[in-house]
């Protein structure tokens, strides 16, 4: 056991931190604040392109694909540093969809799409969920039917986030309606310019825009199929553990904790004491810090397990449940420390650090059900971690 970073890992962290300190100019931060942290503005696009030019997008990819071959733990550290800055890096594109295209797409798609991902110029939206297929994703109904040299796609997807800025949709569709539900799904890459594709915005509580997307006789060439026919489910789930780890990265709150403590140490109450002189505030901070420490260790252990091929499915689900529920709780505790200022939004006058918490609290509500509802994650923990027989839902 060793709980210290190696010298090489420390160097890497310093390199990432220095890079993002430079990248995150005040102008870019201002633009990101206006777009509720989802990116898409001109400065965001420029920053993505710069990261591509500097070789910072596909760091975990093998060198022959423009990456640096980082280990899972090093890649976790990279995401920690990105998350620390608040830059909305498209992890799903670079860590999940990108590697699947790189390894399983046709030669045409590999040439057409993959270089753009590495260069930071290509955006991909994910078309998994449907109105009737959420956590039970394999119940999806969108159909892809072969017609000569083409696939014809019909159906509707829900929560197709970032699709209004995307060049492609990474789409799960049913290709064999007679097979058991997990064995009749295939993956496609579909340009958003395709005829028959349309979308309508969905505005969420957090202020983040997402989309419903519609597919009416959308035709794509045969080689838009990625991976083997009817083997899409395996492809989707092959990256789930990495996605779950990225979702609960401790970097999303570590630097904010530091800033919040500093604020409480230096900000005066009406009676002249500092905010942190209140005993309940200290206890709140102690709870936040102790919980974050556990999350930090859970995440590093999971990343280490990935590198040593010892990944335990129960631990991946435990990280997802613990991390997502912790974030929601921490945003509440942080809001309490700040007080009524934590309901002022970023575009208000007189904002302080509370505006960040206001935004986080509002946008955090999706994480406990997104990426696999926590109830289902707990079932996985009970089954894979404690060998308890699972209920009828899974059979």
């Amino acid at each position, binding site marked *: 056991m060793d709980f210290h970073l190696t010298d090489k890992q420390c160097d890497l962290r310093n390199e990432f931190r220095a890079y993002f300190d430079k990248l995150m100019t005040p102008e870019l931060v201002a633009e990101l604040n206006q777009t509720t942290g989802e990116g898409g503005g001109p400065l965001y696009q420029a920053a993505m392109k710069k990261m591509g030019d500097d070789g910072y997008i596909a760091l975990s990819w093998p060198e022959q694909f423009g990456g640096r071959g980082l280990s899972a733990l090093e890649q976790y550290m990279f995401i920690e540093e990105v998350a620390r800055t608040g830059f909305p890096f498209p992890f799903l594109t670079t860590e999940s969809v990108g590697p699947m295209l790189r390894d399983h797409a046709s030669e045409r798609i590999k040439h057409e799409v993959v270089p753009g991902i590495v260069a930071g110029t290509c955006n991909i939206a994910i078309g998994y969920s449907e109105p009737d297929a959420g956590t039970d994703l394999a119940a999806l109904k969108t159909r892809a039917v072969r017609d000569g040299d083409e696939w014809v796609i019909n159906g509707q997807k829900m929560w197709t986030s970032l699709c209004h800025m995307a060049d492609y949709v990474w789409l799960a569709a049913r290709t064999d309606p007679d097979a058991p539900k997990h064995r009749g799904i295939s993956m496609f890459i579909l340009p958003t310019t395709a005829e028959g594709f349309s979308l309508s915005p969905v505005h969420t509580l957090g202020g983040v825009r997402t989309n419903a997307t519609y597919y009416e006789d959308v035709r794509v060439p045969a080689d838009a199929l990625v991976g083997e026919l009817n083997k899409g489910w395996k492809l989707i789930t092959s990256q789930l553990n990495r996605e779950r780890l990225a979702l609960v990265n401790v970097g999303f709150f570590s630097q904010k904790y530091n800033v919040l403590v500093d604020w409480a140490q230096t900000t005066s109450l009406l009676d002249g004491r500092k905010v*942190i002189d209140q005993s309940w505030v200290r*206890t709140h901070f*102690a709870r936040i810090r*102790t919980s*974050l420490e*556990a999350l930090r260790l859970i995440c590093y252990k999971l990343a280490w397990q990935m590198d040593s091929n010892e990944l335990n499915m129960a631990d991946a689900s435990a990280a997802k449940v613990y991390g997502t529920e912790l974030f929601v709780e921490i945003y509440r505790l942080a809001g309490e420390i700040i007080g009524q200022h934590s309901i002022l939004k970023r575009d208000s006058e007189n904002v302080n650090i509370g505006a960040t918490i206001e935004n986080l609290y509002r946008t955090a509500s999706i994480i406990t059900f997104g990426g696999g509802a926590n109830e289902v994650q707990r079932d996985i923990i009970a089954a894979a971690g404690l060998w*308890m027989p699972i209920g009828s839902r899974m059979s």
Partner: protein
Amino acid sequence: MKFSLTESQNEIRQLANKILQEQVTEERLRSLDQCENGERFDRALWQQLASAGLLGIAIDEAHGGMGFDYFALTLLLEEVGRSVAAVPAVTSLAGAAMVLTEYASDTQQQQWLPAVASGESLLTVAFSEAMSSSDLTPHSMQATPAEDGYTLTGTKHYIPYAQHADGIIVSAKLNHNENILVIIEPGQAGVSFTTENTTTAEPQSALNLSAVTVPSSQVITQGSVANDAIQFGVNCLVTAYCAVQTGASDAALRMTAKYTSERKQFNTVIASFQAVAQRAADGYIDVECLRLCSQQAACLLSDKPVGLDAQRAINDAVTMAKIWAGDTGHRISYTAQHLHGGTGVDREYPLWRFCLLLRQMEFSMGSSQQHLTDLGDRIADYSVAMS
């Protein structure tokens, strides 16, 4: 960052697990339950652990031990928790022997450590006082200089196995900001005990010292070094409780998973009810948080800290581990009891001893809330920043 054990650490863990799982049977625990107050001590098991070399895991080879570090010792402690063995491993090995190894003179080490490793002598530690919590600086135990040494007067509480020990490490106040650490022998004039019956029936006592003469040969350290030694001893003891708590909560949770997978109600095993599975899953997360924070504290304690930041990092890691030990212990104990229904409280079924042990560990050397208060004060002082 590395989360696997070395080969020799694995061997230690497997050896400890094998002996404790084989020896600490329900039958043996039941016969120990019949002991008189203050006598629940599995001496035969203690000697078996000694014969296997396990009492000397963290004692130097020069003194008859294996010469591994504190972390390796916590592997034994986790197994002690997993088996609810009635042995003084925490106080004698993680408390007393670690303090002697780090701070005692060669003569003192030679006097005590080989005998601790062989099981011939038992040591314990007296840090706690009435109303002391996570702050274990001595207040009421007073030391005054005397001819060739000191005179100690005062009372210590909750001392595990005090009346079975051959030596008791006692902390005392020397003056307003200096302390002293001595080793008292129970036969010395002015030493008396009051038995304290604990929730687990682990023997504990109050130690009353009435003008006890302590020659300089029994002084381990004094002055500012004594403060460091007390902090080190407290850290070792608290982290040891966390390791025991990890083993005990893991065992109680797994016992619960097994029981609910066999117990049928409404014609089906109750583990298949999602409400039951979800609560057990929360327990799994709690145990994992406790395990990782405890292992981190034990590893950091095994390093030699250089400088203030490193010392703070150790203290903070230990505090956070104990907060998890308290919270996880409480939640696992209650979850295990609840999911077992009436079986969980029946003394014919083995769960009850785990629940009592979890509660005793929760409140030993500072509850979660006391440690949270400490940590909060440190955050106000130096932020305990996230890297």
